[in-house]
């Protein structure tokens, strides 16, 4: 019987061993499949090359990986443009996977390049799986990065002295650009001729009887400007860029006019005007999160641009608010617009987005105007409407005219409705 007992013990041990190995084997398979299933950054040599008039990306060895999951950030004239490689626009340009030798032309004269050879492409970044695959040139802004890694920023340091931006690159280039004494700007008047003008934050705020800055190139302003007794005017043959600035005119009837052949950008900008506020750009107007206030009665807040971005902006006017785009969308989600007079939100092309907006025209009319039948007014989300009838007119632009005070309500708006289209 003793020998049988031993056999039972051995059999039991073997069985337990088998069960243990089976359990851990199953666990191993599960764990390994989990570990191996994790996505990881491609182990590939992705070269991004920038030459005169050309910028391209090429796979130069290593693993192949899906080509359409990445994101390309391009610095075009100081503005970041985001390209998701999954967009249909890349269908004829990129195959399903990046393989050795595959090439994407970002800038160049060759057919298929994203940007022309003469475009102001200053840099680019390719990101995939949250990993920085390649980078070349300068980043947008002062070292800001679309990725979590900012230590490799190649952006130039911010300037410390105002200068004429002769080469138009927005950064001071010794031997080419010319510095300006800060005192030459303190009287509030400066004409940069055909060149750009850069006014850094280091010189402090400028307060003068009148402010009048003109430049043939791009104007970059990183200081507060205040016109105490006369109008404030900034005119650029290129772009106007406000960097953490505030603008103000004091005393009644002092207008403020911002005019640019290109873009006007002022994310977070603060403007207080005691006269008409007129913003006119040949390119895009980007005043996301900005605060624009017109305090004097019978004075309008007027914004015109190829496209306009007023997302999360705060607008107030003692009279009308008139926002018009000439060739692009009007984006004003979360905007808070309060006026004593009428409000006209007008897009000649590209539609209007007023999602979750707060529109208060007092006793006057609220109108959204579209010029094309393909445009759409988006009013998704919780919308707050306050006018004489709790309604928002949605009209074709041809019916709007320039003053909606006498226009007809064609689409009754019910504040409880979540969306409305033309």
């Amino acid at each position, binding site marked *: 019987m003793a020998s049988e007992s031993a056999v039972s*013990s051995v059999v039991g041990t073997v069985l337990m061993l088998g069960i243990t190995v089976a359990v*851990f084997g199953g666990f*191993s398979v599960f764990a390994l499949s989990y570990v*191996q299933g994790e996505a990881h950054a491609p182990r590939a040599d992705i070269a991004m090359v920038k*030459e005169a008039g050309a910028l391209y990306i090429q796979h130069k060895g*290593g693993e192949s990986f899906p080509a359409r999951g990445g994101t390309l950030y391009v610095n075009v004239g100081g503005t970041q443009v985001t390209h998701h490689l999954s967009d249909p626009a890349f269908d004829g340009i990129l195959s399903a996977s990046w393989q050795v*030798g595959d090439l994407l032309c970002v800038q160049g004269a*060759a057919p298929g390049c994203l940007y022309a050879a003469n475009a102001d492409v200053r840099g680019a970044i390719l990101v995939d799986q949250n990993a920085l695959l390649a980078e070349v040139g300068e980043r947008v802004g002062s070292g800001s990065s679309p990725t979590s890694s900012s230590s490799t920023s190649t952006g130039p340091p911010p300037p410390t002295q105002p200068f004429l931006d002769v080469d138009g690159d927005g950064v001071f280039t010794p031997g080419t650009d010319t510095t300006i004494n800060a005192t030459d700007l303190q009287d509030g008047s400066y004409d940069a001729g055909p060149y750009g003008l850069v006014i850094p934050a280091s010189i402090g705020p400028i307060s003068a009887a009148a402010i009048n800055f003109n430049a043939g190139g791009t104007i970059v302003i990183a200081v507060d400007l205040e016109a105490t007794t006369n109008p404030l005017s900034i005119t650029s043959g290129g772009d106007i860029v406000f960097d953490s600035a505030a603008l103000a005119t004091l005393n009644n009837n002092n207008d403020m006019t911002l005019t640019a052949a290109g873009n006007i950008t002022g994310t977070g900008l603060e403007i207080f005007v005691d006269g008409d506020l007129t913003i006119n750009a040949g390119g895009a107007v980007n005043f996301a999160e900005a605060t624009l206030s017109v305090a004097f009665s019978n004075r309008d807040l007027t914004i015109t641009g190829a496209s306009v971005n007023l997302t999360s902006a705060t607008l107030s006017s003692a009279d009308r608010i008139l926002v018009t785009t000439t060739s692009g969308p009007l984006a004003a989600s979360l905007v808070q617009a309060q006026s004593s007079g009428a409000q006209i939100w007008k897009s000649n092309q590209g539609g209007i987005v007023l999602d979750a907006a707060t529109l208060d025209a007092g006793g006057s009319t609220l109108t959204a105007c579209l010029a094309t039948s393909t445009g759409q007014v988006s009013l998704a989300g919780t919308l707050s409407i306050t006018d004489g009838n709790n309604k928002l007119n949605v009209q074709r632009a041809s019916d709007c005219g320039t003053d909606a005070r006498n226009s007809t309500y064609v689409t009754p708006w019910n504040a409880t409705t979540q969306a409305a289209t033309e």
Partner: protein
Amino acid sequence: MNGDPGESAVSAVVGAVLLLALFSTAMSIYTISTLPEWKADKEEIQQKRVQAVLGDLRSDVEALSVRGDAGPVTAAVPLEAARVPLLQQTPARGTLGLADGFGAAFSFPATPSLFLSDGAAVAAPTTSLATPPCAGKCVATLEDLVLGLATSGVTSGKSVSVTITITDSAATPATLVAVLSHVGTASSSDLTLTVGSTTHYVQANAGTALATASAPYRVNLLDSRYTFASALSRLSEPLQVTFATSLSGSPAPSLVASGYTAVFTDANGLLRATGTGVATATPIPAFAGQRLVYRPAYQAYPSQDLSFEGGGVLVDAGATTQAMVADPSLRVAVGAGVGTLEWTLIDLDGAAGGVSGSDGATVRVTHTATQDVVLLTPASCNPCASITLDTPSAAGWANLLDLRTGLANAGASATVATATGQTTLTLASGSGPVTAGWVIHLRIIHATVTVT
């Protein structure tokens, strides 16, 4: 259970087995998942190291050619990836060796004019000294400047000289002056060069035999024997070139003929040639050389061959998935109707075979000869010229040529065709972006390679 030693032992065995299974599982997970990542990291580094060494080899060989030096230059190529400590018994290794298979053939269906061969003017320099290479400051880089002079009446005490003044673009212009003198009294026929603090001059102490119309005096001012070339390289571009002649003695000698041939890159980056060439149907012969190939056998990172051939380094992941990872000296530009092709090809020769092992390999390259020609194709020809490369890396070369001609916006004036093992660049002029012909500067560097 109580006090039964046999059952206690079973419990201990079960515990040990459980621990062993746990350890085995952990090690399995680690080995299968993490270890390959570490291996791949180290193998990727190894690939980059070899790539860098081969890329440096190109510039080293080109430097030998420019200096007219035989060399040799050597390069140490690691053949083994670093080992993952403790856990990897045998690291990945590769082989390096010469393999047959890189050749180039040059075809010129429309006979081009050969301007310069190995830095010397082929025809008598004929462009008048009164019309320097480019009006104003438009010479970005002066590649060659060959002067030809024929004099008469240069006897004892008399001289003929040409002064070449080159002014750069600096705010306070820097000027180099070269004085080329033919002095009748000298006895030596050699050229000498004297460099002063402000004046660099080439003086020809030539006999009268060099001063006849039938045997015009010629000198390439940018020849590496003269320090004028290195002085010139320190000037800021663009440059302005002017000539002035001077006759000394009574009765004055005469300048029977004078002229120059120049090859320069203009301020727009285009290669230009002035002077007169000689129609030559076969200005440069074909060659069939070898490739220096590194063939890794990685355990985790993709095993992709690296080859140093024709002056470039290519990575090969398959017949159609290849890329140039270190470009050869190649430039294509088009402007104002003129096409420019500047290309340096390296022809390798040596005993085929490979080296492998953990100690690495040593590559020794000896420069044997360089052919350097500048050609101008006719303004209207299709095709004007074609250059065919025979190599297993044809797709990689086609990739590079497509990129370069595309970025130059050469359009139909430069087309690339590829087939298995062969890539052809064809140049045309007349109806495409290029209407005034192609200026082609080809340098073929011949070198011998040994791998030990």
